[in-house]
């Protein structure tokens, strides 16, 4: 930055040749030129994390479908086909013969089908609570996906603004570097001509600054390349894809920043983590109730149908006797299924209750720490805002100082050193001004993330 003042010294005081403008190069034809919102959209589209989050939503949705399906009847069918002994009714008429045996040469074939149907009527909450848990679980997963999207948005904004800052600083350094060369030439000429307005120390200063400027330029160029590479990666683009950003200058947002309390209130409504916890608590409460429901029986309506057929066996019609190889009967009944254990259900309830309690603690943590996080980012924002105002004022005064110093030098009533000092202050403040704007934008991006603003709403 010191070099900037040198450059200006040269330009103004020493009547250097015109310095060419370092306006950002136009994107080559075919280049992908994206604004901030375009970058955010592309990053959200390309992000593998969101694919994972979507898969989680779908998995939880399948659990909801499963829970819902328990409301419907379940049918179990078993079918058999195999050998059976031949049998005649006379073997049990009028009396049951007890000297019959199964002989291999007197076998026949049989086939049978048994169907059992169970329609749950009342489960004391096993089904409904699991459905509720799954429904809230889906909301938890949706909030997680939203959180991932907000994280991605924050990163994109960091890279985007970082690239803009790097370019602003690069422009400053390039201007300085170019002007330094011209200044050096002019200063040397004035010195050779015996001018009192320049001395050898000024030449040494110029040379010293040249090295510093070269170093600053390398740093600025590295910063630009790094930010652009990071942005491409986040956008899912290959390293060789020609990409440029649509924003040319890093300027302050024209907005009235709401109060801290307004941010906190908004966070309670929008922050995905708050919603995750709220929905998670509801889901866990439902799972606790579902576990407790296992203490109670299931009331159901049962249906049974059994059919069997075999050749070479007489059909027996007797309510006391059922031929397992040749029969048909069915019926329906109201049923009660009750599974009793000695501690298993209790342990499961305790486990679910512990998970529920854990979430309550997480809620307490979030209630205390999310506002704290917002406070930090809010203070960062206000600090940056003040810094922008301060550096803008300093930058403006640096310009005034430089204008006056140059005007005096032009008339021979002011020393070259005064211009050096003025331009040094001007350059430093100009760089600080851009840095402050960057800090403001990053603080705003962090605040939007902390509040849970929608990605594109927050793209200022």
């Amino acid at each position: 930055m010191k070099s900037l003042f040198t450059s200006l010294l040269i330009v103004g005081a020493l009547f250097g040749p015109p310095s060419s403008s370092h306006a950002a190069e136009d994107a080559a034809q075919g280049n992908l030129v994206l604004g901030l919102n375009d970058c955010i959209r592309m990053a959200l589209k390309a992000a593998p994390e969101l694919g994972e989050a979507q898969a989680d939503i779908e998995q939880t949705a399948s659990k909801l479908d499963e829970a819902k399906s328990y409301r419907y009847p379940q049918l179990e069918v078993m079918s058999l086909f195999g050998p059976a002994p031949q049998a005649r009714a006379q073997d049990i008429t009028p009396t049951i013969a007890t000297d019959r045996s199964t002989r291999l040469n007197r076998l026949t074939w049989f086939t049978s089908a048994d169907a059992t149907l169970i329609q749950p009527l009342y489960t004391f909450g096993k089904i409904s609570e699991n459905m509720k848990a799954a429904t809230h679980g889906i909301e938890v997963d949706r909030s997680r996906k939203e959180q991932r999207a907000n994280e991605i948005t924050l990163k994109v904004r960091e890279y985007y603004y970082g690239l803009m800052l790097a370019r602003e600083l690069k422009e400053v350094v390039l201007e300085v570097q170019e002007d330094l060369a011209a200044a050096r030439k002019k200063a040397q000429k004035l010195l050779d001509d015996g001018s009192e307005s320049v001395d050898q120390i000024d030449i040494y200063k110029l040379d010293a600054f040249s090295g510093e400027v070269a170093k600053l330029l390398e740093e600025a160029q590295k910063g630009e390349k790094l930010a652009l590479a990071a942005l491409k990666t986040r956008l899912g683009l290959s390293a060789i894809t020609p990409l440029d950003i649509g924003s040319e200058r890093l300027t302050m947002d024209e907005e009235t920043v709401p109060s801290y309390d307004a941010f906190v209130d908004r966070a309670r409504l929008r922050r995905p983590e708050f919603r995750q916890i709220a929905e998670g608590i509801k889901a866990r409460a439902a799972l606790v109730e579902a576990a407790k429901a296992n203490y109670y029986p299931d009331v159901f309506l049962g249906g049974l149908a059994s059919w069997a057929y075999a050749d070479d066996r007489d059909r027996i019609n007797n309510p006391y006797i059922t031929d397992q190889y040749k029969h048909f009967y069915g019926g329906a009944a109201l049923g009660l299924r009750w599974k009793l254990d000695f501690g298993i259900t209790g342990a499961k309830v305790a486990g679910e209750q512990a998970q529920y309690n854990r979430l309550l603690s997480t809620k307490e943590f979030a209630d205390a720490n999310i506002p704290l996080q917002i406070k930090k980012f809010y203070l960062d924002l206000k600090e940056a805002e003040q810094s922008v105002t301060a550096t803008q004022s300093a930058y403006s005064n640096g310009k005034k100082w430089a204008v006056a110093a140059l005007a005096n030098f032009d008339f021979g009533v002011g020393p070259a050193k005064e211009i050096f000092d003025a331009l040094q202050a001007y350059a430093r403040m100009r760089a600080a001004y851009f840095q402050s704007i960057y800090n403001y934008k990053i603080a705003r991006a962090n605040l939007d993330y902390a509040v849970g603003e929608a990605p594109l709403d927050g793209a200022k």
Partner: protein
Amino acid sequence: MLRRYAVAVVTGLFLASNAFAGATDDVKKTVDEVVHVVSDKNLKKHDQQRRQALKKTISVIFDYSEMAKRSLGKHWSQRSQAERRQFTDLFASLLENSYAGKIESYNNEKIMYLKETVDGDHAEVRSKVITPKRDEYSLDYRLLKENGKWMVYDVVIEGVSLVSNYRTQFNKIITTNGYNELVKKLKTKTDELKAP
């Protein structure tokens, strides 16, 4: 940066956002002429001719005598007619040479005329210089009506009045080392600033 200020003082591409009458028109007319001279491809090959053409154009609207008088402030009344003429000539020469050199580095700067304030024979034309990189600088002209024509007697760059600045600087030198020391300094500088 400062070169651009200087360029803007007397040049800059005219891009008026509003149509003003009187003082603004006079300023714009001169600015247009300066741009024409600077952009002339034939004159670019002849530095001396171009410098002369620029000086001629600038002198049409700049009242060097008034600027010199105001810059010397209270010391003006203590100077003889000959001293005043000498001082005015030195002042005009320095102003022409120093700024003409910078005007030649004109680089598509744009000027937007923002506001004109007229108070009797005094007027102020406020403008904004916009560089190709969209940096903006304020540039205001203070004018005095002489024989029905508006003439610039002060230029305010980024809030810095050149006349006020010179008055402070000149007064400091005169108070410390005397009037002759000031003239000596101005002469020395004039010799340094030779036309190309």
